[in-house]
């Protein structure tokens, strides 16, 4: 079952569903970019495939798949709400 656990988006595994609580980026331009791409507090992310080398990872958000590198997904905090294979 879903266990609420606060973590970074970069800590999730493929198949996880993740609810964003905070986008806390030191660089304002990157923060703006992430918000514009749909990574907004309250938003839900479905974690997709990881690239063969482990980075970047595909995330499904607001109906579009966006690939983020670890140094970007590190700044997105929230909880894993579910996992489906």
């Amino acid at each position, binding site marked *: 079952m879903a266990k609420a656990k606060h973590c970074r988006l970069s800590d999730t595994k493929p198949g996880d569903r993740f609810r964003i609580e905070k986008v806390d980026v030191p660089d*304002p*331009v990157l923060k*703006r*970019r992430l918000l*514009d*791409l*749909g990574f907004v507090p309250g938003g839900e992310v479905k974690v997709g495939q990881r690239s063969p080398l482990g980075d970047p990872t595909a995330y499904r958000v*607001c*109906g*579009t798949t966006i690939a983020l590198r670890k140094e970007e997904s590190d700044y997105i905090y929230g909880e894993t709400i579910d996992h489906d294979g």
Partner: protein
Amino acid sequence: MMDKTYTVALMGNPNTGKSTLFNVLTGLRQHTGNWPGKTVTHAEGECRHRGALYRIVDLPGTYSLYSNSADEEVARDFLLFQRPDVTVVVVDATALERNLNLALQVLEMTDRAIVAINLMDEAKKKGFHINTKKLAAKLGVPVVPISARNREGIDALLDAVDAMAHGRIHTTPLSIRYSPEIERGIAKLLPLVKELMGDTHPARWIALRLLDGDASLLQALKQPPQRLIKEGNTYACCGSVKSV
């Protein structure tokens, strides 16, 4: 006798069918190139509707006008400095939540905007029902459902463009209220921006961008815009001419 040509800008997220709409509107009467000094594709064409001539400019697909990529700068500067007679924001009917972000940003910059909800056929297939009347009332601008690839709704869209270009539509674009702190900042800056820029630019929007510390916008405002001057099929760029 030459009629006035109205400029219509097409904006939208990537993959919303913006260029499909552009092709439907302009057919073969179009030419492409690059924006001056940028490796960003520039496409424009002509379209005739009810006797009036429209210059349709297909702006780069962007998620936002704030993130300072070359694409977004081109789109932002076009709205800000070229001030098209009508801006059509093309949104994806199947991903409204994502797409309306850009639409709201455009509504902060201009009141001469129309929201075209594209991919209506796909939305229908997915079982979405979109209440365009309610959306139009909320956004304060015309909302037209279309399916560019099936050529559906194009006439209705052009009718709306026609009405807006000729000043027959009065819009009241949704203006987002920010936190009291930000609103206080806007109130402080607004008279100064108006004094400096006059009424030709969206003062509230510029004040907001200043509060956000948008260095790229300051740069664009300081350096007079690189205007596109149409001379036959070639484009000249004032900025570089001056600096030569």
